């Protein structure tokens, strides 16, 4: 058993950073939140829905409607173009119409890849792929965004770009985001920091230098500079 006693409540619009050593159970926790895995006991309740009461089929439906994922290795579908990758969650949700299509393409515009809409993922750089992945995670307007080391595979400069995007598109849109990371630099962004130690969730104090109020990323920048 990786996770033993996890007891936490998250607020809408919060960015929670999840820390922990390799194998500590971070990904397992994300899987529980996404309804990919089921806990042996206890409940996972997301915006009023108890995932543990749902069967596999309904958890999948819940995920497709309300959860967005960003992975370390981008995980775009190589057989679909950039635009199609973005539209897939909408199609799965069954809400593809002219308006949502436009919104998805706007998202592409926002991540700065409107001109690569018809390219296949293997033609894109790592940073570009992750930007598409961010857009895809948000295309269907989920409550919850789960990011599993989204910058783990990117260089520093690109990492900043992606984080800026996540911050701008997620937190400011009022979505809850849980980000697993090893990078302490990102920690400065968090509203809350929790870490997993010996299967338990431990709330950590926020960094004292964390500025309050202003754009967190701007703060991160200033913090770094």
């Amino acid at each position, binding site marked *: 058993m990786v996770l033993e006693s996890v007891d936490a409540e998250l607020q809408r619009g919060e960015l929670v950073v999840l820390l922990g050593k390799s194998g500590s159970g971070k990904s397992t926790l994300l899987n529980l939140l996404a309804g*990919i895995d089921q806990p042996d006991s206890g409940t996972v309740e997301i915006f009023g829905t108890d995932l543990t009461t749902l069967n596999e089929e309904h958890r999948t439906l819940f995920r497709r409607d309300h959860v967005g994922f960003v992975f370390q290795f981008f995980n775009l579908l190589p057989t679909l173009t950039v635009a199609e990758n973005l539209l897939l969650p909408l*199609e799965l949700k069954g809400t593809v119409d002219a308006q949502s299509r436009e919104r998805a393409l706007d998202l592409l515009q926002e991540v700065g890849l409107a001109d690569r809409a018809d390219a296949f993922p293997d033609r894109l750089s790592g940073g570009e792929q992750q930007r598409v992945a961010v857009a895809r995670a948000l295309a269907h307007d989920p409550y919850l965004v789960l990011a599993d080391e989204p910058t783990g595979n990117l260089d520093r400069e690109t990492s900043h770009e992606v984080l800026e995007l996540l911050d701008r598109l997620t937190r400011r849109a009022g979505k809850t985001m849980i980000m697993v990371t090893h990078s302490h630099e990102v920690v400065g962004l968090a509203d809350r920091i929790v870490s997993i130690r010996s299967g338990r969730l431990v709330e950590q104090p926020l960094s004292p230098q964390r500025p309050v109020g202003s754009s967190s990323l701007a703060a991160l920048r200033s913090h770094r500079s």
Partner: protein
Amino acid sequence: MTSLLRRSSWRYLTAHPAQVGLAILGVALGVAVAVAIDLANASAERAFRLSTESVTGRATHQIVGGPSGVPDSLFANLVTALPTGNQRFLATPVLERWVSTPLSEGRTLRLVGVDLLSEGAFRPHLAALGATGREFDLGPFLTEPGAVALGMETAEELGLEVGDALPVAVDGQLRELQIIAVLEGQEERGSQALGDLILADLATAQETLGSLQRLSRIDLILPSGTDSETLVTGLQRRLPSGIRLLPAETRTNAVAGMLDAFQLNLRALSLLAMVCGTFLVYNTISFSVVQRRELLGRLRVLGVRRREVFRLVLGEAAIIGCIGAVIGILLGIVLGSGLVHLVTQTINDLYFQLTVRRLVLAPTVLLEGLLLGVGASIVAALVPAREAAATAPRQALQRSALEGKLRRQLPRTVIFGIGLIAFGALLLWPAGSVLLAFGGVFLLLLGFAVLTPAAVIALMRAARPLAYRLFGLLGSMAARGVTASLSRTAVAIAALTIAVSVTVGMGVMIDSFRHTLVRWLGHTLAADIYVSPTRPGSPGAAGAPLQPEVAERIAALAGVDRVNTLRSVVLDTDSGPLRLSAADLDERGRDSFDFRYGERNEVWQQMAQGAVMISEPFAYRRGLAVGDQLRLPTDAGPRSFPVAGVYYDYGSDQGVVLMERPTYDRWFDDRGFSALAVFVQPGTDVDSVLAGVRRVAGPRQQLIARSNREIRQLSLEIFDRTFAITDVLRLLAGAVAFLGVLGALMALQLERGREIGVLRANGLTPRQVWKLVTGETTLMGLASGLLSLPVGWVLAMVMIEIVNRRSFGWTLQVTLSPSIFLQAVLLALVAAVLAGLFPAHRLAATSPATALRQD
């Protein structure tokens, strides 16, 4: 499923053209063979129905007699007895006989004599020709001697026109007919129905056929309903003894039914290629699932449901099946037009005369082909689709995980395989139908296929030390490689094993059949020379008699020791036509029979007292045993004969009833001979006597006289021709299995790029890579070859002991020739090695850097 998922799926398929192409080709070949055989069968059947219909027409009943037919006075009596005013039924006389023409070797035509005055209601297509044809003048047709009309297609084929003479041989005697009209069918159906007909006025036909005052039958149209029954009983009462009233379809159905077993056997065999094709689809789809394990995992994370993944994979299989089936149907039509000749040839050799001019594209057959291709592909994809749907989100389904799972499931797989075999054996057990027997055969094959992974592991474990000793580490690695990707190699080995074991099974069966036939011919053909007016065994011409004068002269020839005679006739019975032979045999003639049931001396004793003996297929078909009574329609009315014995006979799968000549003479009003068996005096040259026979017969009757040796040769030629189609089908199934191995190896090669890259980086030369891969394919081929031996042997036993006996009623002596088994191993080996050449070359040529980057 969303359009984007479909698009993703389609792009994956198009990005792997070789894999998908092979699977499509596999389905296409499987469907092509099945469609081709079905089309050939359907065409033969349709041609038969049409030609029968053209002669039977709308008749509901027929009045038939014994071997010499019906006296035409009976028709006159019937007509005068017809209830006048309120005409309650219609009747018309028919005389028909198959005749040959010297214009075209081997071609037979159906000379039909009708009475045009009473004909109209029966065969409107013929009557209409008479009425509408501007060139068709009834006058000369009725008055000119030998005046006949011929179908347009036949006339063209024989190069004849109106006014030409048409020479025909009737019972070995040449007659000349005059073509006064060439008939053009109103429509396709009409012209095809006219195919083999020579239409003549009844009197002309009687004169030409030497059947004065005789008819083949009287056709009747009786009103339907209860009236009919009373009418039938009334008519039956009025008929003289030996003359019977039968429903018209009895004969047609019974004759068409002769082909059932033959066509079913062909069909079952034709499905073989599809079975191999199914393995190919399974391989392709399961490979695509393993290769896309990550992609499928990502889809699951995005919220694609299990059943959507399941449907996605099945959809891909359906696309492969659809494209394959469409190509297969087109190929099948091409292949069918080739096979229809082989099928027709066999029908003509073994059953009855039939000319099939064109392939009938029966829509049901084409639809069946489509369903077969798509259905088989979907069935093949069920297991991999389930695997794909079970993919947990983000969990990468590794090949090693899959292999591990397969290993864990091995005990269950073995039990399942044994279960399938047991169930298959159960289907074979009871005296069920041929269809059940084939179901059993397919289950057996499937069971053996399921057992393949376990067998491969055992074989490779045994092979590894030997391979190490012979080829060092590379040899050992090759053996290990085969089991390491068992989920893929086992399927390829299973497909190849099935194709090869069917070759072994069919080979042993055909070999045993041939040896049995040779032995039987050697025993049965006791006489030195056989003489008959028609081709021996020619089914349509059983009644053709030999002129008594000719027979006498032959018996009196110098060098002739004794002559045995045979009369062979076809009786119309309630359950269809029945071949009856009457033999006048001496001691040597009797010795030529071998009994399956019944003690020799007792049988001949009872035969002398008026009993009959029946051939093995006849006993099987009618469910008769020694001591039973067989009811036959004789010229003196129906009569029961005790069955004294059941004898071996491989001449006809319909079976023969044999009685002694005195018994025949007692019950039948017919003194003719159909054939003579001539025993030459010891020390006399057979060829000189043969020349004498031909000389004596020449001016009087065209006879076919053949020496014992010639008949033996001819029989074996017919035998080999019959199984020619089997060879074509086996070859095609083999081709599909070959594609299966090629596909499996190519998939393996794609998957193993990295492994080979590591090996190359560690210093393995391209040549060594080539050796490694070729070593693996050689082992796979060897495994297939070895596994196919026991499977093939079981298959052979089932074919000989069950399928063949249930289909045709023959007992075959099993002959196991080692060469067939040796050939099988070689065949599997060569197929696997050939299929491995290209993948081995590709892998050897891969640069280690590229291969390493692949992951």
